[in-house]
């Protein structure tokens, strides 16, 4: 265990990665281009003859589409095509499948079902002309009453949103449950203490700084479609395009270039992509479509929107016995949620979190509303953001009920190291953990007892005064993640098992090329995956080139989301490198005229056991493998290998977070004074990059807890469709993060590494909300829904009821 000094992980020294042979603080290879403005993002791509697309969108949340008149737009001198739902219907492309076995309208044909929905697509010579032409399209709508509040979606007489589906009578998408309902009810029936609370995890949006886009290029001569696009899962996109468009898969090349952040926003296929492809087919020229920010916020995958009722059962002395949860999930107008096929509520059922609980049950109902589709995005690890928030709020509610310190209550109930591998009451097998140690590490860094003493002191002083001083709050969140989807027996995306391939080729001079199926969007894969190869083969990190994002060049795999890159593709990389190393052993045996069984591996060399002077370096072996050396029968020469890694289980990283906030009781303004985050993701391939991942996720937590929400008015108008209203934290709202770490390796992962990318986004919102509610305890506040904006906190202090998701009185 090491608790790093908050100031101790700064600069990396000079010289970059040269000569570094493996794990550690290696400066990033990808930085060289980004700091020079030489990244290659989708909108940087310019192809000969390229045209530009723009989308006409619905102003209504729910309306019948009566007519779409494109005459004037088509007459625009710079317009080359106008595509409508009718055009697409002729190609059988007006609807496309989603990742949840539903369909989504590409361009509306019958009705519009959310504000901002795609109605027509213009292709023109310039971006500006395409936008001009949108104004020339005349659409006739007949407005229909919308469903805005998910809690009314199943009411008798609620407007039917999906009348496109034969026989559908209501807005229910699915009912799904996990855990043992009977056993849980029994535990609740004889529990000494039961606490329940309704809470909303409001609709937010991942808002990557680069929006979604594509350059589609259909070559009519070769019949090959090339798309450069913002995708986190290029191979899955290729297969879906093949299935949807009927193009043969070997004639589709999906290239994911540099991506300006994904955060789950760039997993699915959006109507704009399909339109651009059709636009290229229709015009015979490349077509670029790049959405603007308001389009991104209004129409691409939202996150969360879970209305949860949590119940926790415990003994009077603070032994947690059961958890029961009902969820109403707002999925918008089409079920486009991205998750493994068998998990309609993602991995929400890890909601028992980090605690030893007798019984648990959850029931999730998904409903349609007149909003954009999505749900799983924004570093949620398939709904674990919601699960972690629920349980960590419930623990604090129980602590308040029992008048127990929330840290003490957690320490009393956390799973102990000797319980791993731990089978949870909802069917997960946690791989490894040492939770109390990690929580104590965070409490040490924060100086927890001193903080509580300061808080008690302030409260005592405020008791007799008018109470204009800031209210101090301390919030804890202890989370368990479940990342690395996943075992292909249980987990697939549209029938594609969630295993990932890797190919490694060592050139004659000992330099290597690694080809992987995952797609970085800033997480540093070009560096860390080279580190894995360097670690396994004992060659410099700079001697390994990582190729990703081009489906013609890389092995099949499911892409990057759910923090799955390190657990799945990282494991594949270690395995493929070990295959190469074993091949190298045979070549070295031939070189050294020794039985390969008599060789032993030392970093970078196979040596004759016990004789370091007699050996061959990886570089020497590579040259010999390509040379004239006589190799044993069955060894073909060269030095390469391929593999497919099917993970035996997920990895379960965890962390202990402590937030300290000050709340101004006069204005409701919350200031995050300190934030301590101790993450345990097993072995750290590159601690510098892990820390950067955590920093970014903690900023997400500040944003979600205090600022971000996509609210709607009663007509279904989207009230958070720009950065004027959808507020993201800047450098001013974020404190200087204080990090620590513990290391509990994953026993089943070849490197002992777990995923970590989403941990901080999963873990941090509850810490901040717990801190704010803790600060407001003198006002008798039990709970307050995110986002805790100054206006909302002020309302809470005043005891005024309100909804953060609706601008409806």
């Amino acid at each position: 265990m090491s608790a790093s000094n908050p100031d101790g992980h700064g600069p990396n020294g000079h010289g970059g990665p040269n000569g570094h042979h493996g794990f550690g603080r290696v400066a990033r290879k990808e930085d060289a281009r980004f700091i020079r403005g030489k990244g290659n993002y989708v909108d940087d791509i310019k192809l000969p003859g390229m045209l530009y697309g723009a989308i006409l969108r619905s102003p209504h949340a729910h309306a019948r589409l009566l007519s779409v008149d494109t005459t004037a737009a088509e007459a625009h001198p710079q317009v080359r095509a106008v595509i409508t739902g009718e055009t697409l219907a002729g190609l059988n492309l007006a609807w496309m499948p989603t990742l949840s076995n539903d369909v989504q309208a590409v361009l509306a044909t019958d009705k519009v079902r959310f504000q901002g929905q795609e109605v027509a697509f213009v292709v023109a010579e310039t971006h500006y002309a395409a936008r001009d032409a949108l104004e020339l399209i005349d659409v006739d709508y007949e407005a229909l009453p919308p469903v805005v509040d998910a809690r009314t979606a199943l009411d008798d007489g609620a407007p039917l949103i999906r009348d496109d589906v034969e026989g559908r009578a209501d807005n229910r998408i699915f009912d799904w449950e996990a855990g043992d309902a009977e056993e849980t009810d029994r535990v609740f029936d004889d529990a000494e203490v039961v606490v329940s609370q309704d809470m909303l995890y409001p609709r937010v949006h991942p808002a990557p700084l680069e929006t979604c886009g594509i350059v589609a290029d259909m070559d009519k001569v070769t019949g090959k479609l090339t798309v450069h696009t913002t995708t986190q899962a290029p191979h899955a996109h290729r297969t879906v395009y093949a299935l949807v468009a009927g193009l043969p898969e070997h004639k589709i090349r999906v290239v994911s270039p540099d991506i300006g952040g994904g955060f789950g926003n760039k997993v699915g296929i959006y109507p704009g992509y399909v339109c651009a492809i059709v636009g290229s087919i229709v015009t015979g020229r490349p077509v670029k479509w790049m959405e603007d920010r308001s389009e991104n916020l209004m129409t691409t995958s939202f996150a969360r929107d879970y209305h949860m009722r949590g119940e926790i059962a415990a003994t009077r002395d603070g032994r947690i016995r059961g958890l029961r949860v009902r969820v109403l999930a707002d999925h918008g107008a089409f079920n486009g949620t991205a998750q493994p096929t068998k998990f309609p509520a993602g991995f929400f059922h890890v909601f028992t979190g980090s605690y030893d609980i007798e019984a648990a049950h959850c029931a999730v109902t998904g409903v349609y509303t007149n909003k954009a589709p999505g749900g799983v995005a924004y570093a949620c690890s398939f709904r674990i953001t919601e699960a972690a928030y629920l349980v960590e709020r419930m623990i604090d509610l129980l602590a308040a009920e029992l008048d127990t310190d929330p840290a003490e209550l957690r320490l009393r109930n956390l799973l102990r190291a000797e319980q791993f591998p731990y089978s949870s009451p909802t069917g997960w097998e946690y791989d490894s953990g040492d939770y109390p140690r990690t929580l104590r590490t965070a409490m040490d860094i924060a100086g927890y007892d001193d903080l509580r003493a300061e808080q008690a002191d302030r409260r005592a002083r405020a008791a007799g005064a008018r109470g204009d001083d800031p209210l101090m709050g301390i919030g804890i969140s202890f989370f368990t993640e479940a990342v690395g989807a996943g075992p292909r027996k249980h987990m697939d995306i549209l029938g594609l098992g969630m295993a990932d391939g890797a190919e490694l080729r060592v050139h004659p001079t000992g330099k290597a090329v690694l080809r992987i199926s995952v797609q970085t969007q800033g997480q540093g894969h070009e560096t860390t995956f080279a580190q894995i190869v360097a670690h396994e083969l004992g060659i410099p990190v700079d001697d390994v080139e990582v190729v990703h994002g081009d489906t013609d060049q890389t092995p099949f795999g499911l892409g990057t989301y759910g923090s799955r890159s390190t657990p799945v593709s990282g494991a594949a990389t270690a395995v493929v490198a070990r295959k190469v190393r074993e091949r190298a052993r045979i070549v070295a045996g031939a070189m050294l005229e020794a039985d390969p069984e008599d060789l032993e591996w030392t970093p970078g060399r196979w040596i004759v056991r016990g004789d370091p002077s007699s050996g061959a370096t990886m570089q020497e072996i590579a040259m010999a493998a390509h040379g004239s050396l006589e190799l044993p029968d069955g060894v073909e020469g060269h030095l390469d290998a391929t593999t497919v890694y099917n993970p035996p289980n997920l990895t379960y990283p965890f962390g202990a977070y402590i937030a300290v906030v000050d709340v101004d009781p006069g204005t409701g303004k919350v200031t995050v004074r300190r934030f301590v985050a101790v993450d345990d993701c097993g072995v750290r391939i590159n601690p510098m990059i892990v820390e950067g991942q955590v920093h970014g996720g903690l900023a997400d937590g500040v944003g979600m807890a205090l600022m971000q929400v996509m609210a709607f008015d009663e007509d279904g108008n989207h009230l958070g469709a720009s950065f004027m209203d959808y507020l993201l934290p800047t450098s001013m709202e974020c404190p200087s993060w204080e990090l620590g770490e513990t290391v509990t390796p994953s026993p089943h992962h070849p490197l002992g590494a777990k995923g970590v990318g989403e941990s901080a986004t999963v873990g941090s919102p509850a810490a901040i909300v717990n801190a704010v509610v803790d600060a407001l305890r003198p006002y008798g506040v039990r709970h307050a829904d995110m986002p805790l904006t100054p206006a909302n906190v002020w309302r809470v202090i005043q005891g005024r009821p309100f909804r953060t998701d609706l601008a409806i009185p």
Partner: protein
Amino acid sequence: MNITVTVNGQPCTRDVEPRLLLVHFLRDELDLTGTHWGCDTSNCGACVVWLDDVPVKSCTVLAVMASGREVRTVEGLERDGELDPVQQGFTECHGLQCGFCTPGMMMTSRWLLDRSPDPTEAEIREALSGQICRCTGYENIVRSVRWAAEHPAEKPEEVTP
């Protein structure tokens, strides 16, 4: 209309529509794609460049307004093959991840350091507060700017006339 904008020291003459935004002039006309476009409401600052020595959001400047003036972009930070200390600092301190906000962040950072060579953390945070980063949580950006302050270029920055 015909405009001449001096970009990174090079006069560039183009015939453009008056409504063309400077960010699109730089990206689409001059192929200087380091400057990015992250929002449509002038909040994110991914498009920050210098206009006559002042950082501006180039999505909120018309190209014609830059005619006859000097623009400096991320592509002009490196001088004679030498990285600006700010560029070096962002790499040393892991001040970037996806890289999309980085050009704008670095342009403001350079401007800050030219005026305040030894800024406090609070000054750095305030200077960068018109710009959004979705990846770094800002911590390492602050450290990157401090690194650059502590490792100034050997020769003083030449003053742009």
